[in-house]
């Protein structure tokens, strides 16, 4: 068992013919992911890596029965790619693209709330269900199947933690990178709930970083709604305070968002917080 994706997930690649898209599609296929096709406007009818390319997501979905999509298109076009996938009724959309303006993401959120699609990201490494499917750019060889769920706001820091788990022989159900942008499609609480509901997941690792209040909210959710053990790591204890301008940010967030605040909130919820990423396996016994 796993969450979000498994070996039966039929995956479409938006931006399959681009440099990054092509490279990572190949790795996804090698990993055993069921990639059923790709989309690049203007290149419909071509074949890459043995997969058909379509001009539109709608055509691709009709022809392949895809139920998930991974987006590798550049920032200036990524918002449109998300809308297109939502409109075509793709159930799971994973957007790897970094650098999408916040205003665009606030609009995407409004659209998503009125659809049945779930978006992971943007600016994220995607997700990996070890031994079954890889939707995104997480290196496959660092993970192994098991019973620990991993959810992270970071990209490469997630790999670090997953790698450390695997080195110690602790496997994972699914590793989910939700992305580091201020506004994203899926937050900690969404994923924590999925892990709580997934019978195969026995423990959960949460990886957060400074900024925003998502970790504090996750801590409250863990205290009120989770029966499974959660351990955490928060990056940014030595990061300098941001060059804050104006008062609006402070009014909205009330000065929260430092590593100390987050660690205190998690500890108060009974979550043990590791001093460094490679210490996490020791907390999961």
């Amino acid at each position: 068992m796993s969450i979000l994706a498994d070996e039966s997930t039929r995956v479409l690649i938006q931006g399959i013919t681009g440099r990054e898209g092509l490279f990572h599609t190949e790795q996804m296929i090698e990993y055993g992911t069921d990639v059923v096709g790709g989309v690049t406007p203007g290149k419909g009818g071509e074949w890459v890596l043995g997969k058909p390319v379509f001009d539109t997501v709608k055509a691709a979905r009709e022809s392949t029965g895809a139920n998930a999509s991974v987006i590798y298109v550049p920032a200036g076009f990524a918002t449109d790619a998300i809308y297109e996938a939502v409109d075509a009724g793709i159930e799971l959309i994973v957007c790897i693209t970094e650098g999408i303006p916040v205003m665009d993401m606030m609009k995407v959120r409004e659209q998503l709330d009125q659809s049945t699609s779930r978006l992971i990201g943007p600016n994220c490494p995607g997700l990996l269900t070890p031994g079954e499917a890889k939707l995104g750019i997480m290196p496959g060889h660092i993970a192994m199947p098991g019973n620990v769920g991993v959810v992270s706001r970071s990209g490469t820091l997630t790999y670090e933690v997953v790698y450390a788990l695997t080195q110690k022989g602790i496997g994972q159900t699914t590793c989910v990178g939700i992305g580091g942008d201020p506004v994203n499609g899926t937050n900690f609480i969404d994923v924590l709930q999925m892990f709580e509901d997934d019978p195969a997941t026995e423990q959960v690792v949460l990886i957060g970083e400074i900024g925003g209040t998502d970790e504090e909210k996750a801590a409250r959710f863990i205290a009120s709604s989770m029966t499974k053990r959660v351990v955490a790591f928060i990056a940014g204890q030595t990061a300098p305070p941001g060059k804050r301008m104006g008062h609006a940010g402070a009014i909205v967030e009330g000065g929260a968002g430092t590593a100390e605040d987050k660690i205190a909130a998690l500890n108060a919820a009974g979550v043990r917080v590791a001093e460094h990423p490679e210490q996490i396996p020791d907390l999961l016994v």
Partner: protein
Amino acid sequence: MNLHEYQSKLRFAEYGIPIPKGRVARDPQEAYEIAKELGGPVVVKAQVLTGGRGKAGGVKLARTPEEAQQRADEILGMNIKDHKVLKVLIDPASEIRAEIYLGVTNDRAARKPLIMASAEGGMDIEEVNRVSPEKIIREHIDPFLGLRDYQIRNLAYGIELPRELWKQFMQIARGLYRAYSESDATLAEINPLIIDGSGNLLAVDGKMSIDDNALFRQPQLAEMRDTSAEPTAETEARAAGLSYVKLDGEIGCMVNGAGLAMATMDMTKLFGGSPANFLDIGGGAKADKVAAALRIILVDPNVKAVLFNIFGGITRCDEVALGIIEALDEVKTGLPMVVRLVGTNEEEGRRIIDEANIPNMVGAATLADAARKAVEAARNVQG
């Protein structure tokens, strides 16, 4: 990207928001001339990209042009929270009957823009929020619908704004939201919005922050970036597409990904060292970017050791390895270097490093191992 007060106010003025008729001076003589031209008392205001300048003495009243010249002389060159004052804004002084706060920002928790107003504007607005948050009236905005007039009335009613000012307030709030959304701002704030001696509303101070991710479609705003007061390394890093912040420690760090970069910095501290910088080479960095990053790190005279921590996903370890070798051809350094390459194309990356056979470079398998080696190496250099 943050805009100066004068840049923000000029932007606001384009959206019909009334601002004082001041100008920017770069030296005391210019301040004198502007004050003389404006006539009457003026305020001399430091233009720095940081908060708290009023409390730091960067805002002074002057009754005559001579006095304006003298105040400008005092303020120019001041250091406010590590920001050197290179420009002052000379604004006509206004009689202040009331100070209102009006700001639009992104509420990341609600994932919507948020407009806020308070009758108790001014420097202590954050204190107002702490002590009596109900005195700040808030309206979330649907990004597709934009700010609706009824929401502005809710604000005006909530802050008990005199009826005769509602029309002006409507125009200002509409303009502020348009300035925010059309500029891809993450913050557009008027604090204070005053009721002046003639009973009209006037935006005497303003701040804007622009979403860096949107600068590609805001070329006019991108050009307004003021790099004169920022360390050259940060300007160079931005030009190379790197995210760099200089710190005070001795371990130069080059990492891919912001979260891992922060975790790597935290690790150097855990092992008794301290980071010289935050540096994220970003996803998919190629050789030239890595070379630029290394040059920037090595310019810092405090750096005693360099720690490379690359966990390849979209970034390929072989590309990074090539970048390191290329950079070392160009920038010779005898400083100890610790390299850790894991993930996409790691074998190829390690092979490139091994074959280059650089005497002052060692590999590391784990993050803890890498951090420990870098801290020890830096200590030996110092000793």
